């Protein structure tokens, strides 16, 4: 037995050395970018000619949108429907691939699309800062334009569109501080965010601390919830139980979690642990369900941002990249959409609040 095993090993080793290890640095083929380096429009254009040319540029282009989760998730449904409407009018082939909240699957889908070169523009939605680095590289090598939404990832694709979450956090925290002073509540708050190490949670905490620290407010605890309502609700119930009226507001990073925290606070108030309306719940973004919770008085205010705008901006950027003719990966831009603080008083007349799934 010994003899066979050693013979086997030596054979494998020699095969390795003989073949010589080549390192495939991914080839340097620039890849014939879809745009082909030629601008679609010159300095000026005829009226109807522009319409025809735009359509021609976009006709038959394949565009794929790969969100974290699509089915039943209002945020991505909103974006998806906007893109569908826009690209549908332009005659481009638009498809959504749903990885069902499984990063493993999202990475596979992107790999599959890039390997089969089945798409011209990729609209990506990154769950974490460092997830999509290799994929965006591969897409650029394959000459596919990439537009990233929601969170800035360390590997910048052709363009990033999202919300200026730090600034939004600062606005909503200032609003929370005003409410607390109005009520004369103690200068203590609690933060409830996502996994705690992803960019969204970090920016939210940075924004909150930017306002609270100079104002002398103390952050009691920072509870991490993996964006799960169950964990958010348990954390809120425990903290309320422990602090009782010793804190004046919850700063929740994600609007759906805010509803769960609102329920917990309302429940605690109903059971008499805290005085009713003594603890405010502030969050970012505002979809229809959050607005219902707002009208029901469970939550206080939110820094709503223009979700619809993100979808439109992504469509516009895609068209610019296609018409721009610059090869994929040559330009990188970061752009933010508008946001504003919304509460029960102005929720009905702010257009960008209470976005729906359609």
């Amino acid at each position: 037995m010994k003899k066979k095993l050693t013979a086997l090993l030596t054979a494998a080793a020699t095969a390795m050395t003989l073949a010589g290890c080549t390192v495939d640095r991914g080839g340097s083929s620039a890849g014939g970018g879809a745009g082909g380096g030629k601008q679609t429009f010159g300095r000026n254009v005829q009226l109807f000619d522009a319409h025809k040319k735009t359509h021609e540029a976009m006709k038959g282009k394949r565009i794929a949108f790969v969100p974290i989760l699509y089915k039943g998730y209002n945020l991505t449904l909103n974006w998806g429907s906007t893109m569908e409407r826009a690209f549908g009018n332009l005659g481009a082939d638009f498809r959504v691939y749903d990885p069902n909240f499984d990063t493993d699957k999202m990475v596979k889908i992107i790999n599959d699309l890039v390997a089969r070169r089945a798409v011209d523009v990729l609209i990506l939605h990154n769950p974490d800062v460092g997830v999509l680095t290799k994929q965006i590289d591969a897409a650029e090598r394959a000459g596919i334009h990439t537009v990233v939404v929601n969170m800035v990832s360390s590997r910048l694709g052709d363009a990033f569109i999202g919300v200026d979450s730090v600034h939004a956090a600062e606005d909503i925290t200032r609003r929370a501080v005003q409410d607390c002073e109005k009520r004369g509540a103690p200068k203590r708050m609690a933060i409830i965010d996502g996994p705690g190490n992803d960019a969204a949670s970090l920016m939210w905490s940075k924004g909150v601390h930017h306002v609270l620290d100079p104002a002398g407010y103390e952050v009691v605890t920072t509870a991490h919830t993996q964006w799960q309502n169950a964990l958010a609700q348990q954390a809120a119930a425990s903290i309320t139980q422990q602090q009782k009226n010793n804190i004046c507001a919850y700063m929740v990073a994600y609007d759906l979690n805010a509803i769960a925290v609102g329920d917990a606070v309302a429940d605690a108030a109903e059971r008499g642990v805290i005085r009713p309306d003594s603890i405010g719940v502030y969050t970012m973004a505002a979809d229809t369900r959050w607005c219902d919770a707002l009208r029901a008085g469970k939550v206080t205010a939110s820094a709503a941002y223009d979700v619809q705008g993100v979808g439109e901006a992504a469509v516009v950027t895609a068209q610019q990249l296609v018409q721009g003719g610059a090869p994929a990966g040559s330009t990188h831009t970061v752009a933010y959409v508008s946001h504003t603080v919304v509460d029960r008083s102005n929720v009905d007349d702010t257009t960008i609040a209470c976005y729906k799934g359609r």
Partner: protein
Amino acid sequence: MGVAAVDARPDLSPRDRLARVEQGFFVLGITALLCLAGAVTTDGFLTGGNVENLLRLSAAFGILAVGEAVVILAKGIDLSVAGVALGCAQATLAFMADGMSEWQAIALLAGVALVVGVVNGILVAYLEVPALFATLATGLLTIGGIDILLLDQNFYSLPASSAISELSSGSVLGVPRAIFVAGAVFVLAWLFVSYTVAGRLTRAMGDNFDTARSSGAPVRPLQVLGYVVSALLALLAGYMTVSVQGSVQTTVTSFDPLLFTALTVTVIGGVSLSGGRGTILGVLAGALFVGVLNNLLILRGLSSPLQDLVRGGVLIAAIALDAWLHPRDEETARSDEL
């Protein structure tokens, strides 16, 4: 040849004497210690409200653990409980969101849970598929099937007026309804296991399947009964979870913390996976222990990864203790006892 008088009882080693003690009391003792440590270190722990909140949170996986214990007593295992609990709860909310009346939705989903229980039973009892794979597969099938067929929302909130939300709010005879329901389930399970024929035969079947079968016990229907009971209790636990949370998210895998917690509660409670051993009191003790542990971890403000680590470490210690108390007899050890 006179009859040899067997007088001196074999002197028990401390380990055997410890093993004979009902594991339930043992765990209750440790829980009390944990409470003391908790009260000393974190303020606001021993307040009435916090204990009540702790009990309310641990009611759900307590009920699930009872269902799991009934199956494990019969030397099976049921990994589909999480799938059934969350899947059916989400489906009920989905139906209610589509305007179906609440009781009709609950009845429909109870039917689904029953079917899953019966399918599990048939697979394990009649087709003799290893319980581990059968229930794992049916759990995934349930939650995946419901996700594809019924759910079209990612997030469902529970209308305040519904009976499910009543489940956890308000109180009966001064005791919050959630804890009352959990208590009732524990008592009923205890009566079933200790005083009904089916319960006793389930334990006998778990201890030695062939002897139970040759002594005329209806082993296969009993196994099916065990899985059906486990599925229905999972449904109840699902409703309890949803009513405590007030809403539910549908992006969850079958190895959800709920399943993991229920299994470890059962094992800590002394219900050993080799079947036939353990009591419902032990499961209650296990549930309290894990409830207190979770609450302390949250109150200490540990991040969820750290919580997992600590909970994993504690549970490994508990299982190691159980393995040390009831060592697996090398002589009769069979390799396929997973």
